């Protein structure tokens, strides 16, 4: 069984910007361990003959020519934004990264 510590859960929660209570941390640690073990079964299928794949269809070199296509208008672009100002998306100031 994989070991998922409470600290790992807190770290994941912080990366995902999810607030978790201590009780949830305990519960999630157990659940995540089960999930990780289940997914790890995939490793049994990987061998010299079966390599990991990132794409279901073996193909490469799919390109687009460098030709400009119409963009959205500013009002279209902002139409689904919760908030906007001065032609731009308005978001909360986030302080810990720049």
């Amino acid at each position, binding site marked *: 069984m994989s070991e998922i510590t409470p600290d790992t859960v807190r770290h994941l929660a912080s990366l995902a910007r999810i607030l978790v209570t201590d009780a949830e941390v305990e519960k999630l640690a157990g659940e995540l361990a089960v999930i990780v073990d289940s997914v790890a079964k995939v490793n049994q299928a990987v061998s010299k003959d079966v390599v990991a794949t990132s794409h279901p269809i073996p193909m490469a070199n799919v390109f687009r020519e460098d030709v*400009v296509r119409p963009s959205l208008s500013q009002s279209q672009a902002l139409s689904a934004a919760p908030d906007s100002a001065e032609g731009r998306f308005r978001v909360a100031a986030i302080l810990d990264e720049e």
Partner: protein
Amino acid sequence: MAKDNLLSYEAALEQFEVVIGLEVHVELNTKTKMFCGCANEFGSEPNTNVCPVCLGLPGSLPAVNKKAVESSMAIGLALGCKIAPTGRFARKNYFYPDLSKNFQTSQYDEPIAYDGEITIELDSGESFVVQIERAHMEEDAGKLTHVGGATGRIQGAEYSLVDYNRAGVPLVEIVTRPVFGAGDKAPELAAAYVRAIRDIVKSMDVSDAKMERGNVRCDANVSLRKKGAEKLGTRTETKNVNSLRSIENAVRYEIQRQAYILSQGGTITQETRHWHEDRGYTSAGRPKSDADDYRYFPEPDLVPVQPDIAWIESIRSALPENPAARRKRLQSAWGFSELEFRDVVNSDLLDQVEATVAAGASPQAARKWWTGELARVANASEIEISALQITPEQVAAIQKLIDAGDLTDRMAREVVAGVLAGEGEPAAVIEKRGLKVVTDEGALIAAIDEALAKQPDVLEKIREGKVQAAGAVIGAVMQAMKGQADAARVRELILERANS
């Protein structure tokens, strides 16, 4: 903000070995973005070069720009890199509103180019080999404007405004291996390296390469270790130092700041730092995340890039001459002094001078036009010299007329002014403005006679050896000829007269 304690630069270098590493981001000048057909254009109205792909709207799918891949390979090849038989895109996951997808499409363990090197020559002539670990493709992020708060900076901001025009613009990130042994030259080397990258991508025309617009940006890693120590010290990464001068100053500052801390028995925190050019210091940013925190994984919406040999070699064969090699070649071909040559290079006039020489002007004459009169005019009209409406061929044509004695220097400047004013080719300007050297010796002699009549003692003075006395007569003749006489010929005629 309080400045850090610094150890003197000399003391720092006495105790520590400096190790630097540089990450340079080059914005490509493709017509469209990396993964969508939106225009890659600087200065558009906010959020007008955006679409569902670069806004990260659900259900949209990226499509790779072939030209951007070719430019990336070209940069790799120009830096002596190998091109990977398989390159893959990866998601770099993070939450920040500069990219609305919550990840940046980048490359991780399979970059398009790796294992290169570039030789950097400093002004002193000393050269260093900088190893390139990798060059990979990724997309730029949107531009945030922080609003509110006293300083307009992020500290104290009330909210931020996002423009996604830049989101998805193709970038190539070039990463060096740690550079050892530069010693006190480390700051200069860092700046010279970035200048070399800028020159290369500019010569290849894969980027606009304007640092002031952020087309070329540098993150500088600095660490120190006690002299003789094996283990590398903890490094800091100073972000987005965006001029050559800033790079040099920021690296120097970090050396002195870290040296002070270490010399006091302290430890360096691994973190990003921000360079403040106005006051010349770095300040702590966020602690450096572990690579794992970005949870890179292969981008499932994009297939690998697998360039075949023919494609790679066609790009390699189209590479222009390396700018440093070109400079060496031209300097020796033109026979300029170090100072003259540097003047041309620093004024960004190599192309113009080269084309003017190719069109038939002597190197010295070509240099004088571009770094002299034309630079003066551009400066006076506050435009880039490259924006002047005159071609190297026209400059060469005008110079040829001077060499043939058909134009005086003064008249040539007038022809240049006419060309710049849109009056047409030099020949048309000459015709229109009636600029022609008076070659009619009879007219010159008549004017000389007239001037001598007013200054009868000049001939006597010349005979006594005071040749400079001719100057007053030359001036009078040139005035009478409205400047359209060859002053040297006038002088000859006066001296002949005195000695006859």
